[in-house]
């Protein structure tokens, strides 16, 4: 962004929006919109409170567990689908259905099946992330250079060797692209699940704050969640740019 010909540092427009928020808050346009400064003050009060730390921990835990399953089930499944025509025809319709399905609607079912605890949240997170990881790994394997496969076979590679030493690496740029999008979807999954289940993690906090009309608390939590999600996706974006560099060299 430029102002009077000077280049401003990235995201300095945020300051402008922050000031606007503060102003609207101070003139009390709405009860639901407290001044930004008050929200930050609340954040400083609650950030090391027991409930907040616990919510953060539970969110982090379910997020990592959900991602873990999505990655370690999704990548091998995608690679196998890309390699094996039969498996592909068997699974692809389902993957595509779940890829575009409104998964939020499934959360109540999961709650019934797996209870109102972390387990349901983890499964929801996995379900949000896994399909794109499968599809991307599959696409990565399908674009693999045939002669690399022939090369490995001509030297007598076992199926396991070919899987680990050729297919995985050849598909790596696409796989990581899928993992990146999977992460972003998992952030949504972990939040949505908590909101719907609403007795653990931030879901419980939201429930508590909004039922007591603690607006500054409510906004403080939202700001934290937005900041977390944004930081995570920026970090993954940086990683992805490095992988893209490698991918552009790959074709040669």
């Amino acid at each position, binding site marked *: 962004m430029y102002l009077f010909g000077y280049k401003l540092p990235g995201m300095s427009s945020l300051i402008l929006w922050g000031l606007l928020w503060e102003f609207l808050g101070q003139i009390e346009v709405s009860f639901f919109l407290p001044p930004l400064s008050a929200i930050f003050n609340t954040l400083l009060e609650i950030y090391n409170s027991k409930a907040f730390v616990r919510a953060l921990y539970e969110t982090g835990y379910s997020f990592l567990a959900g991602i873990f399953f999505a990655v370690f089930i999704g990548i091998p499944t995608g690679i196998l689908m890309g390699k094996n025509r039969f498996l592909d025809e068997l699974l692809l319709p389902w993957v595509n259905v779940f890829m575009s399905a409104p998964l939020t609607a499934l959360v109540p079912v999961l709650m019934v099946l797996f209870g109102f605890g972390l387990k349901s949240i983890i499964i929801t997170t996995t379900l949000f992330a896994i399909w794109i990881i499968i599809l991307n790994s599959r696409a990565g394997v399908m674009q693999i250079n045939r002669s690399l496969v*022939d*090369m490995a076979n*001509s030297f*007598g590679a076992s199926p396991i*060797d070919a899987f680990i030493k050729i297919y995985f*690496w050849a598909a790596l740029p696409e796989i990581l692209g899928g993992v990146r999008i999977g992460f972003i979807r998992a952030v949504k999954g972990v939040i949505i699940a908590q909101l719907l289940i609403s007795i653990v993690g931030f879901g419980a906090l939201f429930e508590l704050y909004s039922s007591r009309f603690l607006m500054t608390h409510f906004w403080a939590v939202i700001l934290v969640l937005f900041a977390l999600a944004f930081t995570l996706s920026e970090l993954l974006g940086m990683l992805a740019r490095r992988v893209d560099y490698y991918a552009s060299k790959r074709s*040669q």
Partner: protein
Amino acid sequence: MSDQTTDNAVSVKNIYKNYGEIEALRDLSLDFPNGQLTSLLGPSGCGKTTLLKIIAGLLPATQGEVFVNGSLVTKPGPDRAFVFQDFALMPWASVLRNVAFGLELRGVNKNEREDIAAKYIKDVGLVGFENSFPHELSGGMRQRVGLARALSVDSPVLLMDEPFSAVDEQTRRKFQEDLLNLVKNENKTFIFVTHSIEEAVYVSDQIAILLPRPSRVSEIIKPKGFRNKDVDSIRKDREYLDTVESIWKSLRTYVE
């Protein structure tokens, strides 16, 4: 199959290959004498790569048999190594790991295989590039890596699918000279696919001319007189020029 132990390192017997409706090879038979270089020469799409892959065991024949040193080919084996037209290097691996990869897949331990790889990297003139990656090398250097990889598994039969077609003309001539020395010094059987008549006549002990699909061997030519001349005078040799000319005459009817 006791009568298969002849002077032929590879024998192809009555091979048929269909890709669905497409009939690529029909009743093709050909022998590859031990320690010699045989070229497969023919128009584009006539099935040279197909034949080479069948010999390599990468592709099943629809009908017919291939014998390597007397034993029937059913899958790839340590008695054959492949050099690929597009090099088939792993872009994520260094030159050293690429060259050693054949040995890695055969379970040779790391120190040993890297020692062997280093020797062949030296032989192909890539000392100093052990830790480079394929994208940092020129096309010619990449094919040297592919060649070193095939040599380092020390197979008696080397299968080369248009190995020099993706490198520039000067490099190509250098490679052809190197190949002649390789045939002379290593006691290996070379099966060499090429489009180029000049290249085939220059490097081969035996040239098999394949006809367009469905393909079979139409003619076998064995240049004799200039084989032992030094590399520089071959291209001026009378027999060399005549052979090139006569192959062109028999192939030109198919190029229209």
